[in-house]
């Protein structure tokens, strides 16, 4: 699909991440439930090929923050695992910072990070501060740089009150902050974030979001993140990549997505005296969840002006608004197209 003006594939050195025809097929055993099936499968295993990622290609420039979206099972995590060197692809190639990820060269492992929302890099039984010190040694961070980075992370994430407690005693949000800090102490140039805000409350989500933005601004790091929270995506990413059933569905500006996927506008109408009326002959009625009492109809973008004029002429209109559809709905629609 659209390539957001990056179609000049000429200079791979300029890109932080180059993914070319990446594919991953899992060979998974399968059997039906029940005793008979269990016995049969003992003698003859049946396998099925699951094409988790198929021929995915994209490029990401240094310093970009890109949202990587798709419904559950779309292949997002598999892709991130391949890019962070945890998975060998079945086919295709990828270069991140000039490295082939799954060769797992120490130089590569030192310059990237993968933070997964529910997996811990931190040792459960000891305070995060101790794990940080371990990371300092493992990633060969000099004392001065370590202190500076930790101070910076503390300033952004407010670690001081929580990093001395055993990790098992932290709340989910506190743990996530420590996870992020542990993953960023070595100042990676590339960040793969898989659901970095999962399970967090709105305030904590917002904090992590601000932090990522600030980290990106300060260090120029390249970030590829998945999230189920559209607020994360709209706040952080100008560009999104959508995959579904392992295939790339969209790659481009988030602003263009609505135009391409959902060339609709929403017209909200409030009639005088709170009167109701059937607006279905003007456009498709949509349930209004704002609680402002307006009736909503969806119309094609190019028909907005004539329909609005028609509404004003036909009905005792007190208030009329024209809005873009919520991005959540647009992305939802993109998944299912």
């Amino acid at each position, binding site marked *: 699909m659209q390539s957001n003006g990056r179609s000049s594939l000429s200079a791979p050195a300029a890109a932080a991440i180059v993914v070319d025809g990446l594919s*991953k097929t*899992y*060979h998974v055993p399968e059997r039906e439930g029940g005793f008979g099936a269990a016995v049969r499968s003992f003698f003859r295993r049946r396998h099925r090929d699951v094409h*988790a990622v198929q021929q995915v290609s994209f490029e990401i420039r240094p310093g970009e923050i890109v949202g990587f979206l798709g419904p559950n099972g779309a292949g997002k995590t*598999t892709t991130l*695992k391949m890019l*962070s*060197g*945890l*998975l*060998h692809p079945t086919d295709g190639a990828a270069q991140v910072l000039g490295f082939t990820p*799954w060769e*797992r060269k*120490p*130089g590569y*492992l*030192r310059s990237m*990070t*993968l933070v997964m929302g529910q*997996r*811990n*890099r931190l*040792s459960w*039984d*000891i305070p995060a501060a*101790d*794990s940080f*010190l*371990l*990371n*300092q*040694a*493992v*990633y060969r961070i000099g004392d001065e740089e370590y202190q500076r980075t930790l101070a910076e992370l503390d300033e952004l994430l407010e670690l001081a009150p929580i990093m001395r407690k055993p990790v098992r005693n932290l709340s989910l949000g506190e743990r996530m902050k420590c996870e992020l800090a542990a993953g960023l102490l070595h100042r990676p140039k590339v960040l793969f974030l898989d659901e970095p805000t999962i399970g967090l409350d709105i305030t904590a989500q917002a904090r992590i979001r601000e932090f990522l933005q600030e980290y990106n601004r300060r260090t120029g790091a390249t970030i590829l993140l998945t999230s189920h929270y559209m607020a994360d995506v709209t706040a952080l990413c100008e560009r999104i990549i959508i995959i579904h059933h392992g295939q790339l569905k969209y790659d481009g500006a988030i602003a263009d997505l609505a135009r391409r996927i959902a060339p609709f506008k929403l017209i909200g109408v409030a009639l005088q005296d709170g009167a109701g009326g059937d607006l279905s002959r003007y456009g498709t009625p949509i349930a209004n969840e704002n609680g402002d009492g307006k009736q909503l109809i969806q119309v094609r973008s190019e028909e907005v002006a004539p329909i609005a004029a028609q509404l004003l002429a036909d009905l005792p209109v007190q208030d009329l608004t024209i809005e873009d559809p919520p991005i959540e709905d647009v992305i939802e629609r993109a998944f299912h197209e």
Partner: protein
Amino acid sequence: MLRIYKRMWQVNWAEQWQYRANLLMYLLFWLVSPIVFLAVWTTVANSQGSVSGLTANDFTTYYLTLLIVDNLTTQITIHILAYKIQDGTLSGELLKPVHPILTNTLINNLAFKTLMLMVLVPVWLVLCLLFQPDFSSVTPQSLLLAIPAIVLGFGNSFLFGAIITCVAFWTTRVYALNEFYDALFILFGGLFVPLQLLPQAVQQIAQYLPFQLRIYFPIQLILGRVPPDAIVRNFALGLLWFVIGLALFQLVWRRGVKRFSAVGA
């Protein structure tokens, strides 16, 4: 690299202290089988005067030395790592630019061992008071010689323990394999019975296997019962097994990680 080991030690040491109850169970487990063997053989020796020339006190001395040597050369890698391979949490360690087994797992073993030893030594002293072993043959030289033997014994046991654990990359039944491996140890290592009491043919086989290098050889060395040519032969054999173990481990680890990353645990 030294710094990495130092920090890993700090982390693993702190972690070990979190499992005090666990440690007590391990300690009991550790004590039970040598003491049972000790009791059985001393009873037999007492009733017959001796068993193939070994007196009751010989058995006591042997098994009380074994308690310490066994702890120093054992490894618990399968308990540290196999579940991480199976549930995929090994991923977290694979993201780090150091070898998980040769750093974290190794240090974890050493931290466990040290803490165990701290608890074991007082218990051991009490047992010595109770059973009155005869350590008159132990000399400073024999103790000094035993140090490299114990290091080598642990090196080999660590490598082969790691190899067995790596089988978890291919099968979830790795614990059964480990049980079998432990059984070989009990028989050929000198735990069930001092090796000189085994049938001649079995002794012939046992002396070339790595198992005796971990337990029987260091014990006999400490007790000053190994002739010089056998000392040289056993050290050479230990080094040979170490090289074989290292090569095999590298192979199994590389293949294993590749498989791990193919199935996407």
